[in-house]
């Protein structure tokens, strides 16, 4: 099978280039299969967010796949069972489908919650095959892991580990770790995960580049990358070590809050005190920023510009002068907001800006037996997109003060406290729970920030004056609050 564009530099696959190599009937069949693949995404709720039209004429085109343009087709494994990897343009975006080719009548071992992994017939030199969604067929998924593992490994040691694991064999147990519109993550024998992106960026995936940069810089609070799957400058997927026994940071924070509410005592005396965890998270955050600085470098920022940006984005809040009360942040300010913004603008400070995480919060972290890890590198330092809608164009990472990530995180502590309080007592009912929630947030905020600032090496990235740091954190928290609450719930694993 061939593609409609020239070959890329990807090694390993049995790649046949040239659009002319696919005959018309093959193209039509492949488009029909991709149309079914798209339908499965429509059924999973992606339709509304991806803007698929539903008029009758449009529906016919959609069903036949005539609106789909094949961009890149690679044979990862010839024969039966076979495996092909397809990149196609549909609905203005790049879709990425991995198709298993099975003999008609083959028994499928379905992975995950899918009604029917079979997508339709395809014919190649080996005859008629049934194309299946490879990520929902255990046998195809195992083949895929073997193919991906052969693409690029970060180190000989990682390759040796993968080889030793025997995961390229047929025996690995395949389970779904996470399934979302933009990516699906499978686990193999509770040792490795394979994340495959369903929709591609027209350049490197920012989450992957962030992860690779952190790994190269020696940041070890990560599920270690084992293999990167790239072709034609696009990131298609990644193999990582599985975080055995991990719990999402959001879930652990809620566990602590529920214990606090039940005990009714102060957070420092409650059994489920989260402060040691917040402290460890603060240290991890600082190490992440130090590694990002090492990996991607830094530039000088301008505090006055940040203040201007805040005022521009939230004029209704910031235009009010004097002793404006901004609930719930006002209690943290050591001066009226107007004075704070004024003092920052007048400070003339140019602290460093670096490529940050971009959306660092509890839900991006995970607790393991060996401590905390950054479980999710998205959005990779770019501006976060709306949930479930990946960016069509490659985005340049934003350079921000690392304190912006810190503020994002402390804001998520606040959100966790608020959510847990709301779960326990309806918001309309005044109760002591709100006081406890505030005390919990304050205690863990202090622990997180204290650990962050005490981490060796962070001094070069934040102003030395702790009062300025405090005011900058207020500024960034205000900006975060203006953007909106956000869920901060777990967003799944993968880069």
């Amino acid at each position, binding site marked *: 099978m061939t593609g409609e564009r020239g070959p890329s530099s990807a090694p390993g696959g049995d790649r046949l280039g040239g659009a002319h190599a696919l005959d018309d009937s093959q193209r039509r069949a492949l488009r029909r299969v991709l149309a079914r693949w798209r339908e499965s995404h429509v059924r999973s709720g992606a339709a509304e967010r991806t803007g698929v039209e539903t008029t009758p004429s449009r529906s016919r085109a959609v069903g036949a796949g005539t609106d789909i343009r094949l961009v890149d087709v690679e044979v990862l494994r010839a024969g039966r069972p076979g495996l092909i990897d397809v990149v196609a343009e549909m609905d203005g975006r790049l879709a990425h489908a991995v198709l298993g080719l099975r003999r008609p009548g083959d028994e499928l071992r379905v992975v995950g919650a899918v009604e029917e992994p079979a997508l339709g017939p395809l014919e190649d030199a080996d005859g008629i095959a049934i194309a299946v969604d490879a990520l929902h067929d255990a046998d195809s998924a195992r083949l895929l892991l073997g193919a991906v593992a052969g693409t690029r490994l970060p180190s000989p040691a990682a390759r040796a580990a993968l080889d030793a694991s025997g995961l390229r064999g047929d025996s690995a147990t395949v389970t779904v770790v996470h399934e979302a519109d933009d990516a699906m993550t499978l686990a193999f024998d509770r040792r490795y995960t394979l994340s495959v992106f369903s929709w591609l960026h027209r350049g490197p995936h920012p989450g992957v580049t962030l992860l690779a940069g952190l790994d190269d810089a020696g940041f070890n609070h990560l599920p270690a990358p084992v293999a990167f799957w790239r072709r034609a400058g696009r990131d298609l997927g990644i193999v990582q070590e599985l975080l*055995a*026994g991990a719990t*999402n940071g959001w*879930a*652990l924070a809620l*566990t602590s809050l529920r*214990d606090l509410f*039940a005990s009714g005592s102060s957070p420092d005396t409650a059994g*489920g005190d989260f402060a040691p965890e917040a402290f460890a998270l603060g240290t991890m955050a600082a190490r992440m920023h130090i590694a990002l600085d090492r990996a991607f470098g830094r530039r000088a920022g301008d505090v006055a510009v940040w203040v201007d940006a805040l005022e521009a984005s939230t004029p209704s809040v910031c235009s009010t002068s004097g002793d404006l009360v901004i609930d719930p942040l006002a209690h943290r300010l050591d001066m009226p907001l107007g004075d704070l913004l004024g003092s920052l603008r007048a400070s003339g400070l140019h602290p460093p800006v670096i490529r940050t995480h971009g959306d660092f919060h509890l839900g991006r972290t995970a607790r393991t*037996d060996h401590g905390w890890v950054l479980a999710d590198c998205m959005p990779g330092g770019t501006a976060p997109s709306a949930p479930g809608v990946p960016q069509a164009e490659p985005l340049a990472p934003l350079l921000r003060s690392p304190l912006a990530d810190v503020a994002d995180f402390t804001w998520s502590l606040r959100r966790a406290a608020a959510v847990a309080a709301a779960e326990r007592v309806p918001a309309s009912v005044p109760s002591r729970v709100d006081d406890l929630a505030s005390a919990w947030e304050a205690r863990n905020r202090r622990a997180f920030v204290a650990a962050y600032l005490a981490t060796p090496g962070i001094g070069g990235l934040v102003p030395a004056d702790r009062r300025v740091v405090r005011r900058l954190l207020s500024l960034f928290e205000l900006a975060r609050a203006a953007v909106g609450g956000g869920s901060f719930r777990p967003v799944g694993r993968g880069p």
Partner: protein
Amino acid sequence: MTAVPPVDRSYDPSERWFQHAVFYEVLVRGFFDANNDGTGDLPGLRAKLDYLQWLGIDCLWLLPFCPSPMRDGGYDVSDFFNVHPDYGTLGDLVGFLEDAHRRGIRVVSDLVMNHTSDEHPWFVESRSSRTNPKADWYVWNDDDQRWPEARVVFTDVERSNWTWDDTRKQYYWHRFFSHQPDLNYDNPEVAEAMLEVVRFWLDLGFDGFRLDAVPYLYQRDGTTGEHLPETHAYIRRIRKQLDAEYPGRVLLAEANGWPADVADYFGTGDECHLCFHFPLMPRLFMAVRREHRYPITEILSQTPEIPDGCQWAIFLRNHDELTLEQVSDEERDYLFAEYAKDPRMKRHMGIGRRLAPLLDGDRRLAELLYALLLSLPGSPVVYYGDELLMGDNIYLGDRDSVRTPMQWSPDRNGGFSNADFAQLYLPPLMDPVYGYGAVNVEAQMRNPGSFLHWLRGMLVQRRALPVLGVGRLDALDCPNPSVLAYVRWGEVSDVTVDASEGPGLPAVMPTVADLPGAPDHLERTVPATSGRPGARTRFQAVLCVHNLSRFAQPAQLDLAAWAGRRPVEVLGRVPFPEIGPEPYSLALGPHGFLWFELAEHFEVLEEEGP
């Protein structure tokens, strides 16, 4: 006297019995007073063997019973070859051992190797001059500056490991109290003398020793004086003697350290059979307060594999304080804040409280902790009285807070003794919550819903699941941090025990099946040594799921590796839905737990229609 129904039971005849055994730690002084002098004794312990047999324990661990001035609970021995007169005679001891063995109960004893009392004749002679025959049986020095790297263990009462002796005009070395001088194992005569002590008690019928304070036997310049190679060499020497002359007897190391360090006391399978896993215990208490599993899973991940034929010994509480040596400063502060709110509850570097008061009397929490104790890797050790959820007395000095008399009945002195109250070695608990009027054996035996009955039932179940003793542990992924789940699995050996069998244990070994409520499949089935005639091997897997939270919790478990098997709940033999490739969902009540046998073939009996 509490009437105990006679119950026969089987026993494990193999040399690896300790891998499956449930130990019961008992203070002779505090268990039962047969001669009404106010102090528990060996005839009293013998009189209560029916109760211990009924409870279902496999091995008794006796705290020191040798003659002693009793300045440290008997750990200050003044004669290694006799019984403290308060406890009886050597004849009483032999009679007790025979009776215990007749019931299938083994007995191990504390062996205080590191030091003696300063009243021991060896020390009296040694301190008398610098030239007497035992002058070098202890560690003497002209100044108190040697071995500064060695820490002081009891920092709250001792300022140095050296104490001046005015008779000999030299300092003597002691790692614990100043009235407990350390023996000098570099002197071959001392090393041989202690081997003679070992032989003496084994010849009387003991099934092994708990080696007290074993890391400290030797001293070397530039070291902390702990875990030295010479110490390991000496343990191997003892072990070699056991293997050659006393097969089936065991050594249990008391070495308080990190698992990776303590595991050295297993050697290559040629040192101790068992080692206490000290760091696990405080983390169990930490996990239930934090309501998440990480304190436990972290220490499990740091626990190395141990040689074949060895075993960890694990416990919730013991005769000492709840030691917090093997936790960080922050964790110690946390545990003090959570479990020792009154400063009088603190002892040395730990907490001097029993299980029930530590848990604020929360029975569900106690059941959860016992479920963990009985299912985590290791042989569980139950401290006397904790099967009743007895309380403590924090106003008593040192560690006597947890060494009060066993509470047998609501009668005078808790049924422990008919002596005058003032004669008792320690006052029994009389408070309305934990006092003997409220908490005692008699009342709990009468009440099938009591904690005592519950624990006894759990011990029956554990006996039916030998894989909990020797199986591998696979921790399971669960998104809920409050849930700790694992599968214990592996090959287990069974044997049909004949009533006349039993190396070292006299006959009369009937079947477990006679225990009320014992599962049918338990009949005459006990773990056995490999290669034993009649032994059969089978695969066993047990899924254990625990909720560390006070709230009900969902658990979604990745059990894909066990797909096709059917979980059968252990306590009720209730079959649950078959495991499939998808995450397996369970719900657990507050501090609840579920154990399942993962059956390969389970026939669901359908009710016949008309």
